[in-house]
């Protein structure tokens, strides 16, 4: 009987300890990074695997290193790549990548003999339909080259969608 009473009193004390812990957290600052008002630091996305992108060749930022050897297409477990060789030369004419199928396994990146593929860090990519996720990587490469020609960083850190400015605090 006495033991049970002591046990219960100890139990009550443990409840008070629990209350003091949650009470302390109640008053401590929050941990939420609230997208889109806040975004995570770009350096924490440095190795994040976003959708694939083509690596520009050393001399021309609008040209791909791809030699249309189909190694990536064969390596891909999800059949999400489509590379069609262009007329004359090795450069591809079509480079379509279906992000909705991709499992981001990096098999293509590792299989590429020309090191023409890498992962982008586009964490904020969104789409309303599956077709929008069929990405034309050649066009993407050209767009990046044009941006780079305009003075912008060729591989900008991840930016939230337009119109939503990053904000330090809520």
């Amino acid at each position, binding site marked *: 009987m006495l033991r049970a009473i002591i046990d219960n009193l100890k139990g009550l004390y443990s409840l008070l300890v*629990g*209350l003091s812990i*949650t009470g302390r*957290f109640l*008053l401590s600052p929050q941990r939420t990074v609230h997208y889109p008002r806040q975004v995570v630091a770009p350096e924490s996305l440095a190795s994040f695997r976003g959708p694939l992108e083509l690596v520009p060749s050393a001399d021309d930022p609008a040209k791909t290193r791809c030699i249309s050897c189909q190694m990536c297409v064969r390596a891909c477990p999800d059949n999400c790549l489509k590379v069609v060789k262009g007329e004359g030369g090795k450069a591809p004419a079509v480079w379509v990548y279906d992000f909705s199928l991709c499992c981001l396994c990096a098999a293509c990146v590792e299989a590429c003999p020309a090191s023409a593929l890498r992962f982008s860090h586009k964490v904020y990519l969104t789409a309303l339909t599956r077709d929008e996720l069929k990405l034309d990587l050649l066009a993407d490469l050209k767009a990046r080259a044009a941006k780079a020609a305009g003075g912008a960083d060729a591989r900008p850190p991840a930016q939230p969608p337009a119109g939503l400015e990053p904000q330090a605090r*809520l």
Partner: protein
Amino acid sequence: MALSLAVFVQIIVAVLLVIGLMVGNAVVMVYVERKACGFIQRRPGPFEVGPRGLLQAVCDSMKLLGKQIFVPGNIDWPLHFLAPVVAFLPVLLLYLPIPFGPYLTSLQVDDGILLILAFAGLGAVSNILAGWSSNNKYGLLGAARAVAQSVAYEIPMIMALLAVIFMTGTMNLTTLVEGQGGWPWQWNIVRQPLACFIYVVCLVAETNRAPFDLPEAESELTAGFHTEYSGMGFALFFLSEYANMLLVSFVCAVFFLGGWRGPFLDGFWWTFAKAYAIMFFIVWIRWTFPRVRFDQLLNLNWKWLLPLSILNLWLTAVVVKLAN
């Protein structure tokens, strides 16, 4: 007390005000609960709708009002639709004897606390009706738990209040408050700490709040007795849950914390401040503790709270007798 026209009008006005209080309380408490829960869990809680999310609860209630009422098959429909109403209506009555302020009392009843305790039991009836009529096994289990729980915890609750009544010799809530002073050491909690503790435990159990939220134990019974309710049916349960919480908090404030009396500037704000402090405490423990098991809940009641409350009552009786 003759039921004169003036009293009748007074009751009507009071009921309307109480409905306003109930709805306003639910809106405020939904917001406070979600914010407190968010802050405890180190996240901001609702903040998208309105400044700092203030309009979130309003939007939620709009949503509940606008929702289609989904009726499951094979229900006992009169009871199914009666249950939320039964949950909601008695609470209106329960607020009548509460003295919010020195003059702000809906109805001066000499046996005010008796009225409250008598009608508070109806909440369990609504839980049974809801659980039984919705033809859902989770609902049925929840209803069975609700009955056992509220029947069990009513007894030590009454015993705890009875100790205070022995001591002060009145069941009139206004007189009770007037018997206490403004400073904390003049409150009944100092003279009856055990009764206050028992009452607070029973208060959490009676309102089916965590850690005693067994009738709606989410991880076991999905939502317990109101599993099959949607839209307004659910909203009424929700409303009555918060109204019940506020009511027992008011009773606690009146009985143990000096009601409207404060260190300075007596008035209804003290009652409200004290009641909402207790409400916040209930919210706080909900987001801190795991849930007890059902047999533990009943054991706690029958083996600990009830003997303790009887002991407390007996001690109070002896002391009162000797003092006289």
